[in-house]
């Protein structure tokens, strides 16, 4: 089966639709959860669903969608209530509260399972499925349910956007400003509950906590503003779901749920390493660009000073090479690049700075000498140290800052070494 055939197959489309929808919903809610530093609540809720489902099995004696969901919702809500109730004891920190609820509910789940086993309730063994999930077997009914809950979650987030944003950022402030924090908290918790319960039913508890956290981390590293973060997280999640289903459709033995999570994990790792602004690669690139720009300014300054000291404004190729090499080997490629950019010209077998080149060089020298004066007069650095630091700072000053510096220094004409400061033009 080729990719095209796979994605035209109705069953795959259901699985793709279902998983993508659930992944997106979980990612949206996940952003809020991660921003409120409650990432682990997803994992605990996911596992706390087990006793609810087991209980539903005991009462209904069969695998009815409605009963299972009711049981799951009930148990997850109870876990959330207990978490909130335990918050009353300050000695019990967040991680202890989560650990207690997790072991209490998960333990109860196992106990109920053995009760089921003892009474021979049909396929009680299948309850483990809710932990590891059966993402490949999504049925049309589940797809419909996921769509319904997805719609509710998206509508709620869209409708109460600014309130939820305020609540996540600073609950106290939200209260002061008069937002109904109580109701908003309830809404937020309901959203999390719905997303987790639907997720557990189809992809399993552990994968739910992955889909709550991973897209949020990746999106947070990629974009700055909150709304775009939600969008990016949902898209990333949906894409990895589609790819995951596709892969598990093409290759035998490739489980759907875990593949989706692994893809999401890979995306997050990629973003961390290369994509995000503060990722390793991007920072290296930025630094590279800055250093290269500095090299060009240094060479221009070198040539300008030669003009200033020797009075001659052009040089033969040999002279130019000797000047550059005397300063630094790397200056040669930089000069070549400057020539390309038209800052350096070759006319009548002679090299000279183009008007643009001269103008830029003068600016650099001017900044350098202004800085030396400032450092000497205000920062009290010894004269021989001036050059080093000024060398550094000259590349950074924006034009308006240079003007402000000049005003501060009273429009000087000479630098500490007595050399003239070129006027601004």
């Amino acid at each position, binding site marked *: 089966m080729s990719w095209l055939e796979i994605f035209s197959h109705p*069953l795959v489309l259901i699985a793709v639709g279902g998983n993508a929808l659930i992944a997106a919903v979980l990612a949206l809610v996940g952003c809020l959860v991660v921003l409120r530093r409650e990432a682990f609540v997803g994992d605990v809720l996911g596992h706390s669903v087990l006793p609810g489902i087991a209980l539903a099995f005991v009462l209904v004696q069969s695998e009815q969608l409605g009963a299972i969901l009711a049981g799951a919702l009930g148990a997850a809500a109870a876990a959330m209530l207990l978490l909130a109730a335990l918050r009353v004891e300050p000695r019990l920190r967040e991680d202890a509260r989560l650990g207690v609820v997790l072991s209490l509910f998960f333990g109860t789940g196992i106990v109920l399972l*053995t009760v089921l*086993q003892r009474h021979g*309730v049909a396929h009680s063994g299948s309850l*483990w499925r809710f932990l590891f999930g*059966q993402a490949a077997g999504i049925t049309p009914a589940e797809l419909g349910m996921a769509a319904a809950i997805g719609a509710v979650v998206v509508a709620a987030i869209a409708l109460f956007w600014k309130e939820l944003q305020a609540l996540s950022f600073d609950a106290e402030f939200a209260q002061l400003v008069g937002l109904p924090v109580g109701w908003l908290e309830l809404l937020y918790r309901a959203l999390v509950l719905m997303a987790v319960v639907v997720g557990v039913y189809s992809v399993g508890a552990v994968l739910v906590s992955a889909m709550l956290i991973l897209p949020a981390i990746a999106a947070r590293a990629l974009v700055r503003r909150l709304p775009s973060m939600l969008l990016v997280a949902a898209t990333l999640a949906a894409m990895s779901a589609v790819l995951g289903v596709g892969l598990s*459709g093409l290759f*035998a033995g490739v489980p*759907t749920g875990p593949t989706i999570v692994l893809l999401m994990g890979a995306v997050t790792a990629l973003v961390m390493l290369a994509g995000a602004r503060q990722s390793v690669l991007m920072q290296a690139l930025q630094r590279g660009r800055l250093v290269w720009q500095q090299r060009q300014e240094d060479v221009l300054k070198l040539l300008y000073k030669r003009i200033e000291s020797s009075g001659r404004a052009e040089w033969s190729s040999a002279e130019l090479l000797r000047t550059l090499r005397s300063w630094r080997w790397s200056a040669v490629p930089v000069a070549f690049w400057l020539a390309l950019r038209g800052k350096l010209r070759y006319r009548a077998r002679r090299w000279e700075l183009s008007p643009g080149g001269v103008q830029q060089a003068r600016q650099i020298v001017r900044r350098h000498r202004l800085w030396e004066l400032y450092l000497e007069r205000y920062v009290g650095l010894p004269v021989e140290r001036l050059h080093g630091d000024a060398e550094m700072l000259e590349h950074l000053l924006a034009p308006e800052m240079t003007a402000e510096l000049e005003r501060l220094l009273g429009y000087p004409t000479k630098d500490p070494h007595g050399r003239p400061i070129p006027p601004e033009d």
Partner: protein
Amino acid sequence: MRQGWSVAALLCWLSSGLSATWGAEIVVTTSILADGVHNIVGQRLQVVSLMGAGVDPHLYKPTVRDVRRLEQARVIIANGLKLEGKMEQALRRMARRTPVIFAAELLPPQKLREVAPGEYDPHVWLDPQLWAEVLRRLADTLGQLFPLWRQEFQARAQHYALQLQELDGWIQQQLERIPPPQRVLVTVHEAFGYFGRRYGVQTLALQGVSSASEFGLARVLQLAELIHTRALATLFAESSTPVRALEGVATAVRWRGGRVRIAGPLYTDALGKPGSPEGSYLGMMRMNVERIVHGLLPQP
């Protein structure tokens, strides 16, 4: 197949047997095994099974009392060939203290179906003839453990074997009614390997031998494709595994224009509720075959 029981075990059995304060003589893992053993030992020895009806032996969670029963049993009988998952490991390590007999491993390897290098299909009981042989060998082994009733066990095993033979004939005759191209059994996990081999019924399944492995979407599509091209009409659910998995396959086939329905559930790894017709091995097999025939016969 290595002998599941050793002389050393006999010695320590003698010593521990006396100290048995409470507990069954024979503890058996699956309900199907219990039914078989009961037909061998009759009332002579108390037979207790750990796993109730509808329980998937692979995902069985032992309780504290189960362990006490195992601890104090005079003989433990399990199916073996990795049917009981985690418990099998524990039982193998127990073999030094209490005699543990792995019924399916009493059979010579050539009679077993090899699903992967060194891995055999444990569902030997779904072929009545093979099951009769297992019980016969089990009777011999139990006879060695309880020399007093050796003849009786063998006689009862022989008697039960006749019933199994009669069941075998009945099944053969029932399956004749199904037109050969329709004789394909599609289930969730591959339990009917031996059954198919015995009665010339082809078996297809979503999962491999173990019901715990997660099947991928590819397997669902492949199976749906096969069902559609072979114009099969019925999929069979099982008592100890969820039906949700099959619904996916059915949806796929229906969307390709095929008509298919889900019949069953068939009893594979455990008997039905005690006291109900499918509560005994013979009843279960008759129920299964009736449902298979009813399912595979072309609908009017």
